[in-house]
């Protein structure tokens, strides 16, 4: 007589297997391989014999922790981190505010809500390549729509992608435009999961709109908000296509160099695969630490209560 508990576990395992296989083969194994590569000066041109001839491969290329120390001592790394912090500092507040706004609009009873849903979601399903090209054009200093509109109200707009100060904010704008609908939809499902009775009770007590939002909506939406924050922070460190297309060479004065762009260039353009592998692991460590910190903090402000 098996306990139902083990049966449940086995059934779950059977259903999980297909995705677990994919995860192990396409994520875990490459990550471990990368860890070995990151302590070598393998150039990416010689054959990767780390499986067939581990000893020989290490004999030939092993450099210990040199890649890690070189990265952490390079000026470039701190510029890259600085650029990313700039991106995160602008992107996260903007995306939270705007996706919350989107969710609120879509949750209201206005006419043609279906139309708005489609409009907000179009950027999400647009390919980044097309999106970036459109934004490049929109942000053109002389002929772009944005500066055209600013000129109408008498402001001479910035040079956007050609200015070291404005290039990153420009990329933030494009990213917010693209992700707004995605996170908006998540928050919408969070909003719709809130029981109407809370609001009715509050209205009877005479609470205004603002009070309802502050004391009912926000706390009950906090799990979803937290999820959005974690995901958007992780993706902030992984931005790539928009940067590569809008500023292919790292931006004016290197102002849009970011982690994944560096990893790609060192690995596949500059023949420094070991260095790129170490960069990847540093990126992984940063994201892991940030996520752990967020997990700790969530206990303080996230309410899991329906």
């Amino acid at each position: 007589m098996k306990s139902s508990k083990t049966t449940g576990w086995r059934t779950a395992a059977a259903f999980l297997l297909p995705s677990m296989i994919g995860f192990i083969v396409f994520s875990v194994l490459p990550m471990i391989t990368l860890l070995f590569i990151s302590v070598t000066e393998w150039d990416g041109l010689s054959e990767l014999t780390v499986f067939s001839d581990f000893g020989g491969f290490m004999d030939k290329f092993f450099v210990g922790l040199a890649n890690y120390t070189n990265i952490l001592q390079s000026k470039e790394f701190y510029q890259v981190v600085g650029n990313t912090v700039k991106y995160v500092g602008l992107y996260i507040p903007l995306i939270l505010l705007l996706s919350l706004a989107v969710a609120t609009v879509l949750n209201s009873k206005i006419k043609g809500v279906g139309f708005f849903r489609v409009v907000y979601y179009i950027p999400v399903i647009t390919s980044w390549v097309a999106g970036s090209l459109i934004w490049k054009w929109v942000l053109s200093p002389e002929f772009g729509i944005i500066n055209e509109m600013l000129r109408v109200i008498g402001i001479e707009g910035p040079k956007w992608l050609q200015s070291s100060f404005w290039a990153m904010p420009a990329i933030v704008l494009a990213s917010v435009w693209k992700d707004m609908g995605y996170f908006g939809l998540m928050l919408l499902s969070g909003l719709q999961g809130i029981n109407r009775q809370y609001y009715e009770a509050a209205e009877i007590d005479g609470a205004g709109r603002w009070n309802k939002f502050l004391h009912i909506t926000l706390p009950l939406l906090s799990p979803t908000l937290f999820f959005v924050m974690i995901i958007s922070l992780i993706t902030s460190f992984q931005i790539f296509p928009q940067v590569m297309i809008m500023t292919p060479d790292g931006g004016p004065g290197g102002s849009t160099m970011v982690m994944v762009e560096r990893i790609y260039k060192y690995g596949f353009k500059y023949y420094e695969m070991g260095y790129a592998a170490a960069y990847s692991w540093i990126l992984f460590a940063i994201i892991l630490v940030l996520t752990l910190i967020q997990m700790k903090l969530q206990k303080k402000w996230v309410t899991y209560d329906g």
Partner: protein
Amino acid sequence: MKKLLSVVAAAMALTLTFTACGGASTKNSSANAEKTGSEPITITFEQFSGAGDNEVYLKKMIDVYTAQNPNVTIKLQSFGYDDYFTQLTAKISGGKAPDVFELNYENFVSYAQKGALTPLDDIIKEKNIDTSIYNEKALNAFNLDGKQYGVPNSFSNVVLIYNKDLFDKANVAYPTDDWKWADAMAAAEKIRALGKDIYGYYHPITYHEFFKTVQQNGGNLLSKDATAFTINSKENVETLQYLVDMQRKSNVMPTSEQMGGMGDWDLFKSGRLGMIINGIWSFPDFARDCDFEWDIAVEPSNTQKATHFFSNSYVISKDSKVAEEAAKFIAFISSDKAATQIRLDAAWELPPVNDADIIDQYIQKTPPANRKAVFKSLDYLITPPVVSQFTEMQDIVTRHLKDAADGNVTPQQALDAMQAECQEKIQLTK
């Protein structure tokens, strides 16, 4: 439940075996067979210069070869230049390098130094492959430390191409082979004055162009023995100032804004550009699309003449099991009379050979009428430095040049920053 589990487990085991085996390289079946003339042989071949419009001509050359050698099959894959190296790197590191592939001169050194190529000297001796037919300069470009690693398949240089009609309209004398920068700028300003949308000059501000243009002013990016960077020298700052002023001061050259996403070739073809510094590979294109008279001259310079040399080569992977056959094949498509004739008829760059008849045929073709300027330019050739981190250096240089061209920094500031970054990141060891 049990049944389901065992099915899943079996599937998992299978998947794992497949992925585990994926890493092992499959051995070519003909590897150990004695290579006679009749043994069927397959040569895998990847290249970029014959992608797009020119692939037809390359296929013609291959057809001629396989007709003469019916036992050989050539598997051709073409990629655009931008994607070519990314995919090639991945294939080589995965142990799946093609037998024959193409490298441009700048990347050749990286590959040769890292031991990814088969040296050809022994095969050339053994198979009696005649290398005397090749243009010496082009052949030597693919020789490293006394070993020949590749054969040139074409070479090309850069000239001044000008729109005769605009010169006539502006009433300016046509460029000559000994023009100085000042002459070019004076003419460019008169042409610029013809109209708001008419420009006088176009000189791309890129790594390649900058590397050459500083030498026209007696400067250089590297010291004579290529062991130190001399990027922010007085001559180089003057050169960058000259290039930036073209856009920002006299505006004889459109800024990237004024171009509005249009390409420089298109600007020339639209008849709104007086002069363009451009490669000879644009001739077929211009001959087809320009509805005005145009011709060429040797590039203008400031204190000394300097012109570009570009060349591509075919090389053989160090792991190739059919290296000897492959060597015969690349010798054929790069230097055989039939193959070079196909290249010539297509006006697809210069065949890398010293054949007087071929050269004569090239000169006879018009437009441009002054094709002699192409060969005259060869007298002032400069070759790019041998730096194994070439691509990285190119990216650093390009980024800072762009910064100056966009007007964010002065030429002096841009070159100081470029010097510092190159010193930090690029190893200049032999």
